[in-house]
């Protein structure tokens, strides 16, 4: 009999336990449900960080385990955000419109409501018609399905095209980067139907929950993000253990050899690519309601490269490495760019960290690739193994 997942991967249990403890402590300390020691904005930052950890796990799965350096996974993340953002924005605008039309002599017809919603949402890009892609925007369940379907289908089609013609290595990276760039440029247009560079905004207001204060909503999303991260971790751990995991690792190490052994390499890659795209999209759908706004700049190629950077710093090929990397770098980044880090006066020049954080990050990243190719997770491993040896 095969051993259970947790026996094969003891780190999963440790991770789940740590995540649970962290989540419970934060909820107890939060403004919404507990002592109020942790502010709502901090809860939001932590919730967003958990979503970033989830997309980093997806990235680790596709790059660290399967060897596909995708520079496009943040596009799937953003698409997921757009899909849920459409419902959030449409329904909230509908509530506002109905409230404002209720004062009229006649009750509004559905045509009038739609028209008002259209001019409310698309007034900024000079339109008032609701584009066809918003057809399902009034249905939460349809949009939730689209969160999975749209990025999943895009990944499926793109992956099928790319893997079929045996585009590998850096070529594939460039191709995925091109896809991201094309998508973000497309969304930047005003007539893309998604409000051009204005993006979708006001996403932190959940339709139907206007009475609930943000401090409570933020905790709900924090819990949902933690749950998603935990589930994502378990799913990823399950995928990489067992035979499937062995095959994709083997593809990473020597693709040609695995192909000659008779494995359908392209199918394996496609499954991993699409699955991770879906995970990224779910992470995005949880992230953007907490961020409140999504615009095409979020999808720019650089975001996807940062994603790769997080995973590399955390240590690829280990799921907890991805989590550590994403959490460390994104929290450090918001700490440094938040202006809270004291400047260093050098006499002739003052090092202002808001300006120099990027330099530090870039150079730190070079150093990690040069001297610690396995990332922080690699150091962790060495530590653990030393303990085991002694």
């Amino acid at each position, binding site marked *: 009999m095969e051993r259970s997942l947790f026996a094969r991967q003891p780190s999963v249990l440790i991770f789940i336990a740590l995540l649970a403890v962290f989540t419970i402590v934060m909820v107890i300390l939060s403004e919404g449900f507990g002592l109020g020691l942790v502010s709502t904005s901090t809860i939001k930052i932590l919730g967003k960080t958990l979503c970033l950890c989830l997309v980093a796990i997806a990235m680790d799965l596709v790059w660290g385990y399967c060897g596909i*350096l995708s520079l496009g996974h943040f596009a799937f993340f953003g698409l997921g955000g757009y899909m849920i953002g459409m419902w959030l924005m449409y329904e909230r605008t509908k509530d506002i419109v109905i409230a404002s039309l209720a004062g009229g*002599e*006649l*009750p*509004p*017809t*559905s*045509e009038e409501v739609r028209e008002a919603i259209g001019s409310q949402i698309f007034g900024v890009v000079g339109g008032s018609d609701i584009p066809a892609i918003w057809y399902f925007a009034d249905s939460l369940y349809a949009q939730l399905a689209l969160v999975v379907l749209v990025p999943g289908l895009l990944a499926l089609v*793109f992956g099928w*095209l*790319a893997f*079929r*013609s*045996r*585009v*590998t*290595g*850096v*070529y594939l*990276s*460039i*191709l995925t*980067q*091109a*896809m991201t*760039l*094309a998508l973000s*440029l*497309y969304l*930047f*247009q005003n*007539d893309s139907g998604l409000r051009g560079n204005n993006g979708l905004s006001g996403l932190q207001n959940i339709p139907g929950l206007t009475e609930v204060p943000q401090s409570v909503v933020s905790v709900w999303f924090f819990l949902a993000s933690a749950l998603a991260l935990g589930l994502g971790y378990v799913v990823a751990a399950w995928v990489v253990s067992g035979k499937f995991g062995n095959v994709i690792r083997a593809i990473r190490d020597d693709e040609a050899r695995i192909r000659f052994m008779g494995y359908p390499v392209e199918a394996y890659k496609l499954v991993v690519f699409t699955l991770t795209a879906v995970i990224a999209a779910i992470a995005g759908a949880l992230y953007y309601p907490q961020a409140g706004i999504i615009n095409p700049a979020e999808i720019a*190629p*650089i975001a996807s*490269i940062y994603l*790769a*950077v997080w995973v*590399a710093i955390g240590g690829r090929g280990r799921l907890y490495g991805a989590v550590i990397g994403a959490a460390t770098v994104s929290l450090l980044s918001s700490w440094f760019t938040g202006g809270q880090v004291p400047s260093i006066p050098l006499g002739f020049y003052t090092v202002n960290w808001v*300006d*120099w954080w*990027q*330099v530090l*990050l*870039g*150079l*730190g*990243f*070079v150093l990690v*690739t*040069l001297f610690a*190719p396995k990332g922080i997770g690699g150091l962790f491993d060495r530590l653990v193994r030393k303990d085991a040896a002694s």
Partner: protein
Amino acid sequence: MPRIFYLLIAVVIALAPAYAQDADLNSLLETHQAKIEKPSRRTIGPVLDALVASQLPGVAVFLEKWREKDLWQRKADGRFFFVEKADGGQLMLIDVGSGAEAGLADKKDLKNLKPNSGVRGVIAGALVQFQLSDPDPERRLQALTALERDPDASHLSILRAAIESETDPAIKARKERLQRLLTIQFGSDQQTRVAAIESFAGDPGVDARAALNPLLSTSVAVFNEKPDEDVNVARLLVPGSDIETEAAYQLLVDAGKARPIVPLDARKAALVENIENGMVAGIPVAELVTQSARDRAYLALAADGTVPPLVTKEEQRAALADHVFAEVYAEPDQVLTTAARETLANISGTVGFYQFVDLALDGLSLASIYFLAAIGLAITFGVMGVINMAHGEFIMIGAYTGYVVQQYIPNYTVSIIVALPLAFAVAFLAGVALERLVIRYLAHRPLETLLATFGVSIALQQIAKNIFGTQARPLTSPSWLDGAWVLNDVVSISYIRIAIFVLALAFLGLLLFVLNKTRLGLEVRAVTQNPRMASSMGINPDRINMLTFGLGSGIAGIAGVAIGLFAKVTSELGSGYIVQSFMTVVVGGVGNIWGTLAGAGMIGSLQKVIEFFNPSNTLAAQTYMIIFIIIFIQFRPKGIIALKGRAAGD
């Protein structure tokens, strides 16, 4: 002898009136004194006509001074004079007719005539004919420009008269062209106008199209039956296909031939007005949440006669069927419109050809920019298999080098000449440093090289931002690169783009020479094909890698100077080109200069072609281009020009 005598008499008689009239400009002015004193746009015409018809030599000067508010009148007798400043605060009077001095006068005894701008405009119009024959060619050109801007029927004859005497062939050609343009609009008879129209066949000038298009302006008209012969019909319109039914019906309404439709808003207002006890025509207000319910309520009201009845779809259809809709030319003469239409069709053929030429030039220029930006990348990628994400930052370094040089060398020509090699040197050193410090240690790990160089890229970008700030810095091109080479109104290309094209060509030649004809090139090619074999032949691959990387980076620096000339220099300058450059290399085929050339040519011209079909939206053009490239890679994964044999090994 007597014959000569008679001849002399004849000459004297012929010249005499001129002399007599010359003396008479003052008296001529005197007859029109009142109107000159208090001119208005409407009354000034006959005065100017009389002055111009007199053909006196002093008239032009007089009109000019008058327009420029330099005309003075003596209060005592009402005579007109020009003045010059004299000593003692007095003014020296100048006779209008002869230009001779006519004594001093106090300023208070004189009145300065200041016609309003409307009058001055009319005077300027009358002056045109003098200016058209002015000895100074500059003035003649100015007069022509004024005519082109504000053409008038009266100018046609003046212009015709001024063509004969023209000596400058260029100005003469322009006058003749303007005369033909004016003839199209103001020509007296059909035949000359048609001839003028047809003379523009195949002419791509914007002015020709601007003169022809008004002839073809149309309006939609409604007729009860088929329009008469004397109406110049462009085409008949079928409601529903050529013209929207709503618009057609609205035309009928406007012409008073049909009942107006009650618009949605008015219907809603009528419903609101007729609410009684929470009901409209017996229907509770709360039920009026659909358009069909509202329609029912309205129909019920209409049946009572409280509101105007609706116009049914059938009624509309019948009304449309009863009438004929047609596009009618504003110009009644069918011969003219036909000629204009045919000439315009002919012109659009020529314009299409020139547009293609222009598009090809644009594509070529964009291709040369992409080539310059990508060739350095192609070298490093091809030879070392290294993806250098910091390549864009080397472009930026080059551009900033150019900017810094211009801070020290104010002469733009000299500074560009200094900046090009300096940018190469700076970027070369930066490249060598990057190769020595980072890339060397990551050999055979291309994905990690990609990420490490990305780290370098964000660090360099931020450092540039910290040094130079976020605002764009100018890199000014020398004045001899300003302006554009203009073939006609359709085809033009700026000199900077030509210069960049030449630069790209020069680098293509230089690189081909270095790689194919020099010792270094031989070694580079050897390392590209098989580094281990090359090193066993006594080539030091380390040194070659370093030099190649430096060379690629140096060219990026030069590309930076070129790009900086037409784009603003910012720290994000390079990152805007990096993805395009990768595309160029991948599409063209790695490790081959000709491949990069082909890739740049394809991407550049493709982008321009897509932009041509959708000019308002360059973002969409880029999107479609990238999608096209993704599909293209499907069919040629190794690029247009793929390496064969062992060198192609993955």
